[in-house]
């Protein structure tokens, strides 16, 4: 039966070509858009986790309340104890402390006087050999000039920032900041290298310094602003993060002590939860609209086909084929068209998606003044889900369209058939 239907479709191009093309185009759009959204979300998750929040983040409650200001005076103290405890209790998580700080980078002239200054957004991380931070921040690949810091007193500057300040590796730069007690802190560093993060927000004025150097510079011995936790596979899992958070907060959070620690998840801390929900809703709406529009288009195609095949249906009824059989054979044809169109659409969407996944699209110019933590090169992400989300609506739309168009068969009157055929 399927072979018979296929033959009919292949031999009568007017029955298959346009519907298959329509379905293929719609499915292609759905698959590609899903890969696009996946890529955008993954990009955001990774960039946010690696540069800002980790998969989970621990800080004091007081710090958390003003976290957007990076209030280091409210930092987590007894850092070494906390790290030891966390690594013992949650060995499956990679724990790493960080300090976010602001300040000025001041470049001296030959007399030690200020030659040029620029505002800097500082990030202090563990830069010792083997530290996971080097991978999280992709420092080795981001290096433009010089090398990574290997000893105390060395610093990395964003390449664009370094060029603006007219400094090169091995030059002395002075960091002017505030200690955790609010005093002015002035410290000299040697520029080890420059990096380009591919994020406009960071490339404008970021500096990366080893945690111990910043602890000394900002009078934050055995303290850190935040303690980040990353899942071992470096993939964010909201469910796991929520379970971890609930367990940690139940054990350590003390609402009466503002300096007791509190844990929050990436989604909570970054506000990406709303993006994720929005993207999921957007995909659902897009699929729904696709099904509705495709169904309408294919319904119309079916009606036109029905008119064209009016005589054929009449003959088939006249020679004794039941209405329901004709109707089912039409639905069978629809399923075959849907399958064919969906497969072609999925192939097209997956191919373009993979292309964008590997080659990427540099849209950094659009974000040059942005403070969003997104990478300048956008990459799609094709998943198996992308195929499913395109396949089912593709088949469904064809089926619904033909089911509606085919209803006309049941209105044909056998008594009228010969009269109609005579015409």
């Amino acid at each position, binding site marked *: 039966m399927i072979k018979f239907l296929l033959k009919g479709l292949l031999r009568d191009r007017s029955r298959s070509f346009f519907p298959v093309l329509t379905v293929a185009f719609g499915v292609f759009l759905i698959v590609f858009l899903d890969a696009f959204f996946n890529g955008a979300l993954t990009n955001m998750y990774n960039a946010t986790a690696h540069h800002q929040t980790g998969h989970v983040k621990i800080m004091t409650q007081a710090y958390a309340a003003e976290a957007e200001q990076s209030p280091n*005076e409210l930092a987590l103290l007894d850092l070494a104890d906390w790290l030891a405890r966390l690594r013992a209790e949650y060995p499956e998580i990679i724990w790493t402390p960080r300090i976010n700080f602001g300040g000025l980078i001041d470049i001296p002239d030959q007399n*030690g*006087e*200020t030659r040029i200054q620029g505002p800097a957004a500082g990030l202090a991380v563990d830069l010792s050999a083997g530290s996971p931070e080097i991978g999280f921040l992709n420092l080795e690949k981001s290096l433009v000039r010089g090398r990574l810091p290997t000893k105390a007193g060395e610093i990395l500057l964003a390449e664009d920032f370094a060029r603006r300040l007219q400094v090169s590796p091995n030059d002395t730069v002075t960091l002017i900041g505030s200690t955790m*007690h*609010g*005093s*002015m802190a*002035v410290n*000299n560093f040697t520029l080890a290298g420059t990096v380009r993060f591919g994020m406009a927000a960071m490339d404008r004025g970021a500096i990366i310094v080893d945690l111990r150097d910043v602890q000394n510079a900002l009078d934050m011995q055995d303290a850190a602003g935040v303690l980040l936790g990353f899942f071992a596979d470096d993939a964010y899992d909201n469910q796991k993060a929520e379970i971890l958070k609930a367990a940690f907060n139940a054990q350590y959070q003390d609402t009466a002590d503002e300096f007791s620690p509190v844990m929050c998840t990436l989604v909570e801390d970054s506000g990406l939860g709303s993006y994720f929900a929005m993207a999921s809703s957007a995909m659902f709406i897009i699929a729904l609209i696709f099904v509705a529009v495709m169904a309408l288009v294919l319904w119309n195609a079916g009606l036109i086909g029905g008119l064209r095949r009016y005589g054929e249906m009449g003959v088939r009824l006249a020679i004794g084929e039941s209405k329901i059989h004709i109707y089912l054979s039409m639905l069978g044809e629809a399923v075959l068209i849907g399958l064919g169109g969906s497969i072609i659409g999925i192939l097209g969407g997956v191919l373009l998606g993979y292309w964008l996944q590997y080659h990427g699209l540099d849209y950094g110019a659009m974000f040059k003044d942005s403070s969003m933590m997104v990478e300048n090169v956008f990459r799609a992400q094709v998943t198996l889900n992308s195929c499913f989300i395109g396949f089912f609506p593709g088949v469904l739309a064809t089926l619904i369209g033909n089911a509606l168009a085919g209803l006309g068969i049941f209105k044909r009157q056998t008594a009228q058939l010969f009269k109609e055929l005579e015409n």
Partner: protein
Amino acid sequence: MLKRIILGICALGVVLGAVTPIAEESIASPAAAAKPAPQTAAEILQRIDDNRLSDGKIAVMSMTIHGRRGDRTISAKSWQRNIQDSFTEYLAPAREKGTKMLKLGDQLWTYAPDTDRTILISGHLLRQSVMGSDLSYEDMMEDPVLANNYNAAISGEEILNGRPAWVLELTAKKDDIAYAKRQLWVDQERFIALKENLYAKSGALLKTLDVNAVMQVDGRWLAKSMLYKDALKKDGDGTSVVIESLEFNDNLPETLFSKASLRK
């Protein structure tokens, strides 16, 4: 008043230097009581300036910052000449010891001995707090002569800390003054502000100053102990400033007030 005291104290850095410049005639005739009683708000303001400003002085002071995580005390010695210039050296704690600040007119430098760098404090750095206190570097940079910058009006009289005081409302004469309005409670006999509220142009309260103790030096009544509070800071209980010693001296060496002295 805050400004006066800040400048008079030259505090913790610049504050100390900016606090107490004095007019020459005030030194010659320090006893305020010898002058006829002022009749207008402008005359009161002038008497306040005359009382607290001097041509030169040396002060040692301590500043205790009552932070959210406890108290922290910083001490400094400051030399101030005329109304505009000051030199301050931090004495304690160990981390701050040796840090120096120089204010010459409208420019302010800090010197960090660890880095051997002299940094000009300008732009947004001026809005930073002095050593984490409730005072900012901007406070130190203001013209200390109230009569130059404000129009005054008497809005009432009160008894404050057992002392009869005028309540003065000061309104800035220019737009670029950090505090558009000030409210001062001025001791009617000693011409020292016992309390001060500083407001933004919008009317928002920015800072408060309460004088807890006064002292008489060479016939002038000056604040000995005071509490500054940044009203915009949600945390902490303000900053206490205590003048440990104060000496008027019109013959401070010229070399002290130079950038070269920062590295000595």
